[in-house]
């Protein structure tokens, strides 16, 4: 058991307590407030001149599966041998000794969703992991957190132009996605019928993930930058009546009524980079503000390593500068992604019963003074500046 003291503790979005205390035991918050009686011999971490906020959560990263400055052979994010790779699971590509996990801690990021890349129309199953732990199994808090899909340039380039896999055009990409869910549906019905009759059947790994999505046990998480690609994602997902999140949603601000009207979960970013690609030409730091106002559920993302997790909080600062309220900006890097990833019962805010994942800042968030000074995962200090 230990007590963590701070000048100010942001608990949930912009809600805070001053001169607060967090009581931690076995990695969980067992009490949080100002008037807490402490046992005499308890270990005290004193941050009385500092600010604490919940550990940051990035809902779209490639931590541990991308090259990331290390020698070749480390690119395990895209199973590019096929345009439909519903059979692969990102868990089998993650290298927890790769330095991006350390980078995450330096950026105050305690929880990430790790997704396959966007070269494939169907990229494989994603998972949600803490950024520190002894083994991958002990770090994962949602093993099947979504099925990655992709539209637009990346699929066209990889499977249309470089290989002739039937995705030369946008309509070709959409047809592949539709075919996958149609096949998954047929498979699901076949399995149900066989189960009913007590007959044996051959399991098809390719469609197992599709069935999970169709049963709404996990969402379809689709890479879409351009407004028409976003429209295609919404159209197909509504056709199959499945849950979805729109990854990047760069031109969402151009069709805010559609995206907002759907109350869609949008994973916006990466920021602080450049729009060299055609499909990201209309990138604006105002997108989160516009889509939040329109009714979408806004989460910010780094797409690490495309923006380093070290600068996640700086990206959020710019988004706040460009109009998203302080409360919504803090939520967009903590509780909103926790909800979107199905892990809000564990993380995303500092509340009794939740995991003790937090960041220590030198001052207020989004200021030079408020640099990240330390990071705690499951009640353990895992990084200090």
């Amino acid at each position, binding site marked *: 058991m230990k007590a963590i003291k701070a000048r100010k503790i942001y608990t949930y979005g912009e809600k805070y307590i001053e001169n607060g205390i967090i009581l931690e035991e076995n990695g969980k918050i067992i009490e949080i407030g100002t008037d807490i009686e402490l046992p005499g011999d308890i270990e005290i971490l004193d941050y009385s001149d500092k600010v604490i906020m919940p550990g940051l959560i990035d809902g779209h990263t490639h931590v541990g599966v991308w090259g990331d400055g290390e020698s070749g052979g480390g690119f395990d994010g895209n199973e590019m041998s096929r345009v439909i790779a519903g059979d692969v699971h990102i868990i089998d590509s993650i290298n927890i000794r790769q330095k991006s996990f350390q980078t995450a801690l330096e950026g105050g990021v305690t929880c990430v969703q790790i997704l396959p890349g966007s070269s494939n129309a169907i990229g494989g199953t994603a998972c949600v992991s803490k950024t520190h732990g002894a083994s991958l199994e002990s770090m994962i808090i949602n093993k099947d957190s979504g099925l990655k899909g992709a539209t637009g340039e990346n699929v066209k380039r990889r499977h249309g132009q470089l290989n002739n896999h039937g995705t030369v055009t946008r309509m070709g990409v959409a047809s592949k996605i539709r075919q996958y869910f149609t096949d998954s549906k047929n498979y699901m019905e076949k399995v149900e019928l066989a189960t009913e009759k007590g007959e044996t059947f051959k399991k098809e790994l390719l469609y197992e993930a599709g069935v999970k999505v169709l049963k709404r046990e996990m969402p379809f998480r689709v890479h879409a930058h351009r407004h028409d690609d976003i429209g295609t994602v919404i159209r197909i997902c509504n056709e199959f009546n499945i849950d979805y999140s729109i990854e990047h949603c760069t031109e969402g601000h151009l069709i805010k009524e559609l995206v907002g009207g759907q109350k869609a979960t949008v994973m916006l970013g990466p920021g602080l980079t450049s729009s060299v690609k055609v499909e990201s030409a209309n990138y604006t730091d105002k997108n989160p503000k516009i889509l939040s106002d329109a009714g979408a559920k806004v989460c910010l993302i780094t797409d690490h390593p495309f923006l380093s997790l070290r600068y996640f909080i700086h990206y959020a600062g*710019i988004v706040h500068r460009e109009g998203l309220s302080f409360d919504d900006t803090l939520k967009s890097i903590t509780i909103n992604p926790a909800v979107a990833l199905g892990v809000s019962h564990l993380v995303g805010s500092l509340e009794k019963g939740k995991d003790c994942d937090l960041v220590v800042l030198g001052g207020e968030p989004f200021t030079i003074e408020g640099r990240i000074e330390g990071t705690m995962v499951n009640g353990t200090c895992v990084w200090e500046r």
Partner: protein
Amino acid sequence: MLLKNCNALVFDKSLKKYRFKIKDILIKNGKVAKIDDEITGDNLMTVIDMKGKYVTPGFVEPHCQVGLNEHGSGIMGKDVDESSEAVNLNCYALDAINMLEKGFEDFRASGITTAGIFPGNNNVIGGFGTVVKCCGSVVDQAVVKKNAGLKVSISNLSKKDSNIKNNAPITRMGITALLKQTIFSSIHDGTDDMKEVIEGKLPIVVYCQRHDDIMTAIRFSKEYNLDYKLVGLADYQTVKTEILKEDKSFVVGPIMRYGDSEETRNRDVYTVLDEADMGSLGSLTTEHPVINGRYIGLQGGIAVQNGLDYYKALECLTINPARFLNIDDQVGSLEVGKDGDIVVWSGLPLEPLTKVEMTFINGDIVFDGGVL
């Protein structure tokens, strides 16, 4: 035009450092005509009250590809690396700069008024760079310095495009061999610009990241008495004694960019910079579009978070890059006689939440974020 009550970044002669002080600034014929505690304007003059605003000289981006590597246009808008040859002595960035590209708009809105634009890093010799003001539609009218030096790249990148075609260079020693032969050939039948390079009148601007490449750049330049400047410098910490000994301008960055390749893996923000390191010679770059120039101020703020003195960070974005490009007599500080390149900030510059409210180039308002 008269700017009243600016909290202006000016040189404090007693401290020998830049500090913010309340000043009035008079701009005439595109130049800074007077800076004083109180200047009285006449009736014909446009007067803007800058009370509560911070005012700095326009930022100088020393090494970037704005206008060459076009925003949102894919391969057809990418005029960075000629790559048909490993050595491109007849290429001039000047011939590929699209002044109407959105990058320039972003630069103006972020306080960058001058840009050093150089060919990319994928060829051993990419061609000659140029310096422009970030406004207007005709590059020839925007030019500050037509020839800013010969771009050289000693890196994994300069092997990359050749490797695909199995042409030289395949190795690091192959890179240097090409450079040496280029000098030999140019002594006999080089262009006028190459003659200037050989005579040390025009610098080579060398992209190098790894410690051994940095040392190769220094060794090669000294062997042939070339003037040189280094950019990139991921392994700065490893060989900084050697770099600083040479007393040459250099550019570090972009520090916000993660070490995304093997040779830039030490681009570690925590060990890079302190005040003594940067001195009067070190500059910061976004290497736009590697990091969009839009975030030049934020990157400065991050350098401060990681230990760089605040005012030194401002120097690394203004006067030091002006020295790097040899235009410090014209831009880089608020000083009488220099160009009227001025940025007005909503709060303390480099703070993540501070916005650019107004940008002037040569005394003209080129960006107005809603102040007027």
